[in-house]
């Protein structure tokens, strides 16, 4: 038995080598996202962005053909792990990308470390993810980035009492912790902290609870896709009329759902790294092309996918087509470029993203709702990692 296993592993490794030889003209990228299930809307944003990028830039880079293999996780983290494993072992991908939720990204981390394959996180926003494997790189954002900025802003803008409502999972905990720490340091007061369940939330009771505490603002983080229900119930409860503001990371005023939220959402202030309204020529073209191709408006998740592809392409150019994990990750470290969201770079130390965080307010432009940026904080690193 033991003997056999050695033999089997041996042949498999030989197979991997052979695969490597074959891979000389093709670089495979495994795209592990949810096309079905509760996170499907995020998966579709990323998919559309990846498609758009490849349409614009062709599928050949540094003499290599880039092949994206899309696999659906059905929003189940253990699927993500199994699929990533298959992609690495059977399809011999050079990069596994995607991961809209933290559990999926974390579940794949040990694989990435063991197989020395780059794990490119295009969406999940919990700070610790990048620390779980030396081959993880992120093109989305971290929640502390936005939460700290929004806390600073709130303290300066006459908001004294805040209730926090966050979804009960790792990113929510991140957002809550970094907001509260910063806000308190700046002299603010957090009167109540509420955690809402991640699945199928009905925010009405939580909002009522928050309203009864009579704060100046509610700090809210919910995953992309749930923001609309939250805002609906916020207005329905008359909290807007009661003068209670909504502040938070930009997930709650997700560009994808914003047009549907109704005018009541006008005035919500959020901090985030991307708005479809971002004023740059590159972004205007991006939004136009994206909307034309996909049929819906790009949100912050989409730029994670778009920039992720860009990072892969540029890294391949730099390595001259070498696609092993060590070369790629080395090439990716310190990479700087202009994205639809503005200038961004990969921190060479932490492999996490460094980017501008914008304060935005929801306004109506040309009859449509947008997050309009009014203040820019340049080159924000993940605060959780600076401290260390």
């Amino acid at each position: 038995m033991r003997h056999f296993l050695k033999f089997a592993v041996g042949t498999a490794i030989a197979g991997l080598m052979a695969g490597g030889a074959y891979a000389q003209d093709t670089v495979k990228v495994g795209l592990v996202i949810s096309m079905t299930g509760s996170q499907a809307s995020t998966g579709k944003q990323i998919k559309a962005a990846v498609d758009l990028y490849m349409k614009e830039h062709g599928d050949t880079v540094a003499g290599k053909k880039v092949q994206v293999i899309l696999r659906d996780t059905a929003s189940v983290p253990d699927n993500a792990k199994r699929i990533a494993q298959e992609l690495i072992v059977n399809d011999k991908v050079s990069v596994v990308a995607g991961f809209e939720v933290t559990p999926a990204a974390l579940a794949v981390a040990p694989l990435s470390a063991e197989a020395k394959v780059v794990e490119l996180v295009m969406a999940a926003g919990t700070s610790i993810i990048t620390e779980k494997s030396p081959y993880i790189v992120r093109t989305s954002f971290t929640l502390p980035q936005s939460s700290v900025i929004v806390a600073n802003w709130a303290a300066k803008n006459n908001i004294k009492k805040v209730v926090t409502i966050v979804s009960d999972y790792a990113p929510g905990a991140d957002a809550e912790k970094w907001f509260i720490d910063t806000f308190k340091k700046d002299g603010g007061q957090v009167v109540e902290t509420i955690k809402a369940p991640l699945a199928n939330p009905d925010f009405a009771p939580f909002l009522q609870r928050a309203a009864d505490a009579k704060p100046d603002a509610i700090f809210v983080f919910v995953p992309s896709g749930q923001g609309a229900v939250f805002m609906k119930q916020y207005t329905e409860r008359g909290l807007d009329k009661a003068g209670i503001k909504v502040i938070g990371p930009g997930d709650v005023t997700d560009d994808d759902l914003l047009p549907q939220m109704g005018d009541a959402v006008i005035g919500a202030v959020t901090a985030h790294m991307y708005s479809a309204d971002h004023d740059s020529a590159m972004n205007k073209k991006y939004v136009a092309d994206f909307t034309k191709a996909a049929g819906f408006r790009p949100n912050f998740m989409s730029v994670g996918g778009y920039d992720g592809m860009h990072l892969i392409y540029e890294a391949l150019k730099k390595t001259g087509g070498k696609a092993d994990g060590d070369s790629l990750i080395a090439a990716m470290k310190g990479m700087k470029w202009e994205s639809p969201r503005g200038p961004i770079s990969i921190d060479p130390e932490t492999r996490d993203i460094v980017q501008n965080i914008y304060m935005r307010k929801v306004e109506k432009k040309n009859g449509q709702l947008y997050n309009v940026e009014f203040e820019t904080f340049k080159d924000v690193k993940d605060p959780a990692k600076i401290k260390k």
Partner: protein
Amino acid sequence: MTEPTPTAKLATQGILARARWHPLEFVFWIVAFGSIWFAPNKHLILTEIAWLALFALSLDLILGYAGILSLGHAAFFGVGSYAAALLAKHGIVTEPVLALFCAGLVAAVLGFATSFLMLRGADLTRLMVSLGVALVLRELANQFGWLTGGADGLQGVTMEPILGLFRFDMFGHNGYVYCLVVLFVLFLAARRLMASPFGLSLLAIKGNPLRARAIGIGVDMRLVAIYTIGGFYAGVAGGLLAQTTAFSSLDVFSFDRSADLLLVLIIGGTGYLYGGIIGAVIFKIMQDYLALWSPQYWPFWIGLVLVVMVLVGRDRMTRWSEPLRALVNRLDWRRTPS
């Protein structure tokens, strides 16, 4: 003892036929174990098939043999999964085989405790109670985030080598051999169980609970027993998932998992033990193929398969397996009285 009468000899033969191995069964298992050698790059999906087969086998024990309709079988699977992952994470039981057994036991205890709820009421009540138990457990796992990791899943599990010798490698080779061996051993146990008077009495209860009582069968206790055993099997299946992925998340309790499981078992056919295994093979391959072909809309086709199966009639749909069933099962000697 006096020489048995001719009828007694025939009767002995007839009853023993239930336990007799058919050549096709040997072929089946030779092929299964052969896959270790001839499909080394399919071991990851084969691993999935192996634990899913075991999970479906556990449902077959309670649905196919005892006739208990459950829509919450994932409860046991999930408990087993978390148990195995937690035992490894906290270094309580590090040796996987032993930990797997413990995971099964935990699920069996749950099965025993909840079986009394399942004795009450008709199909719909059982359906809802089983579903409710799974939902409650999911909520519990979510609430006790300090233990289970909540919605983030249980991260940071590292598995020790199996029996201290075979490491869970990234290619899933050892993991597959491990799952297959566990499946085979538990299959043998189930086969033996179902050839016993106890197994026979379950079929009787399924066929006619009224008469089963009238010939002195303690119906309730038999159902409790098989539900507990089914819990054990499902727990082991969940444990296998946790051990081979070194991970466990709330989804182990999900409704979809229980619903898919029903589909797996129904595709393969109930009540002859191989149904779950064959169903798992077909279901996984179908799902994998569909998901590759249509990553967004594959559930549609799975749903269509279900709808068509019911409309056409499950009996007719699974008739393809009839020759195998007939040979494997006792039907062969029934049709041809020797």
